[in-house]
């Protein structure tokens, strides 16, 4: 079975801990994205799975076998590198054929296999060119072709689309997803682009400072972020994270005070067990509705800057005490600079994080 599992994997570079106690399971046919800001250890994790870096501690298990001590050659994996790593002196066709030499195939068999993947990735017309003579998008497809030309234990992608322009990226996302869905292999994709992760992955593992913060489906990590970091990292525009004082819970509503404004906002039942004290309230910019007048349930803020984004409008507003709030409203809702807005947060999309930053859920 094509599966990947890492257990308590740690990587140290000297005194620096790049990855700490990372646990991850990837089932056959599943695509998992490692997502995080640069320097969070996601690429190191991938390279440890590939065997390009040794693990300092923990286990890397591929296809049910512990691979800790095996070199990349012996792990039978395929990988697409960030800079594609095409062999510059070889033609596109020879590049794709490189992994096949190991299997000692006949020339005809090799050509047949190369041709097959070249057709899938629309490379059949450029097989004789050198990597320096093809476009950026074609280079990327050659790298993918080289990975899928054989039948490896699993697929690894290191920032596969980061060098493409926006349009190409969009079409390649679809293509890669399509190719992968036909192969039923365990796949790990490293990316710093959340859109890439949300569209391509079955599950997303969000990393920060060497730690895996949350693993879940794209829907889960968006709708139920486990902590403040995940909440702030996933979703654009960024979620509003307001530091507040939690006073108490009742009637499906939490009473919080930020600076001088006291507001009751809808919250899940889990909040009931929370002791009064410091919390962070997270509300997505799209989760506000604008009420016509001030009530106990509204957050009052003055519109300061208005950014039309096409179908929607992003409003940067300032609360009375100076806190910053981002609100997204539909295009037809006209707001003027300086206007006082009475914002009602949607209880289903309101998150309360305790003092340590963890989400409080029922």
């Amino acid at each position, binding site marked *: 079975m094509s599966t990947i599992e890492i257990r308590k994997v740690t990587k140290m570079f000297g005194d620096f801990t790049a990855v700490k106690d990372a646990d991850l399971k990837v089932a056959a046919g599943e695509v998992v994205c490692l997502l995080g800001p640069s320097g969070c250890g996601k690429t190191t994790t991938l390279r440890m799975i590939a065997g390009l870096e040794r693990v300092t501690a923990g286990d890397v298990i591929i296809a049910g076998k512990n691979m800790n001590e095996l070199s990349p050659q012996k792990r039978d994996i395929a990988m697409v590198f960030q800079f594609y790593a095409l062999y510059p002196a070889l033609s596109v066709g020879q590049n794709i054929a*490189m992994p096949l030499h190991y299997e000692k195939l006949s020339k005809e068999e090799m050509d047949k296999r190369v041709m097959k993947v070249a057709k899938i990735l629309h490379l059949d017309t450029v097989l004789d060119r050198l990597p320096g003579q093809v476009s950026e998008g074609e280079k990327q497809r050659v790298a993918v072709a080289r990975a899928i030309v054989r039948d490896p234990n699993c697929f690894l992608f290191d920032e596969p689309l980061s060098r493409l322009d926006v349009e190409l990226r969009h079409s390649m996302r679809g293509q890669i997803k399509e190719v992968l869905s036909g192969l039923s292999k365990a796949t790990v994709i490293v990316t710093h682009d959340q859109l890439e992760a949300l569209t391509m992955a079955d599950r997303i593992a969000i990393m920060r400072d060497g730690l895996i913060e949350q693993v879940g489906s794209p829907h889960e990590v968006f709708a139920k972020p486990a902590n403040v970091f995940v909440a702030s990292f996933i979703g654009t525009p960024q979620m509003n994270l307001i530091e507040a004082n939690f006073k108490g819970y009742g009637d499906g509503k939490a009473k919080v005070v930020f600076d001088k404004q006291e507001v009751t906002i809808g919250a899940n039942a889990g909040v009931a067990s929370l002791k009064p004290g410091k919390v962070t309230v997270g509300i997505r910019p799209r989760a506000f509705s604008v009420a016509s007048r001030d009530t106990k349930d509204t957050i009052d803020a003055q519109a300061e800057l208005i950014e039309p984004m096409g179908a929607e409008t992003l409003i940067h507003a300032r609360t009375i005490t100076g806190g910053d709030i981002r609100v997204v409203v539909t295009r037809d809702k006209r707001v003027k600079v300086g206007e006082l807005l009475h914002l009602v947060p949607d209880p289903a999309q309101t998150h309360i994080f305790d003092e340590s930053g963890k989400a409080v859920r029922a």
Partner: protein
Amino acid sequence: MNTAVRDLPAPAMFEFDASNWKLAILAGLAISILAALALPASLSFWVIGAMAAMIAAVFAINAYRRKYYGGLLVAPAIAVLFVMNIFPLLWSLGLSFFAYQSNQQTIRFIGLNNYIKVLTNDIAAPANWDALINTGMFVVSTVAAQMIAGFLLAMLFAKQFPLRKYLLILVLTPMMLSVVASGVFFTYYYDPTFGILSYAIGEVTGEQFILMDNKLGAVTGIVFADAWMWSPFVMLLVLAGLVSVPKYLYEAAAIDRVSKWRQFWTITFPYIRGLLMLALLFRTIEAFKLYDLVYILIRGGQDTKTIAYLIAEIANEQNKTSEGAALSYVILFMVIVLTNLYLYLANRRNQGA
């Protein structure tokens, strides 16, 4: 960058102006030729020198007025190179068409006779041909030895490993040392009575070992010393190529399970091919000039005279100046042919790629 160039009208041909370089060249040449014909050599040399300085000054003024800073900056260097390299070069080309011996006063134009003499004359030519053959042999053997040793050393140092920087110093030192100084010490090591080499071989075989008493031994000794000194040069060049190979290519090759042999030929070799060719060219040209080691180790004995050695002997000791000049142009010609062959091959490579 060059926007500051001002378009002044060029002075008319015979207008007397400090920036009229055409007139300066004309006058300078005329006076030089007159001086060369009329005055004794020791005086005319200085007159010609003064004329060269005048032309240079006029050029400089012209460049400054027109804000040709490039020309102005480059001029002193060109002047020095002209006086010390290019002028002697042309002089020696001229000499090669005359019959002239530096210990006699007479000088006579004889056309190509010097060339014919050094290449075909019954008495002079055999020694020249021998020296040419010796040179060819030294070129092939020293360059081959350096390329192989340098390449292997580079492969050893291509990886990252502890203490690499310090070990590299040990290997690079021979190249940085004076050829003469280390050459002198090779005579010490090769000495039949107290030399360490002879002693070591003598201990094993029980007989006295004299490296330099036959041609093969002498050539081996010279080639060994030369290869020892210059392999680090080849190593440096190859190493530059090896470290320029992106690491991720080797990583990709590891993932693709490419064999070491195939990795070398498909990934590594394309990166070092150009530098190997460059090393080959540099070392071949240097090997053509081989003089110092032959002189220091054996004073040209055991039939090891190279062409450079022979020219120095002919021109300096035997005072056959113009013959020496002709012979030097023969090697210069060979070096030029070789360089162009290299450039041709290198260009064809680039176009093919």
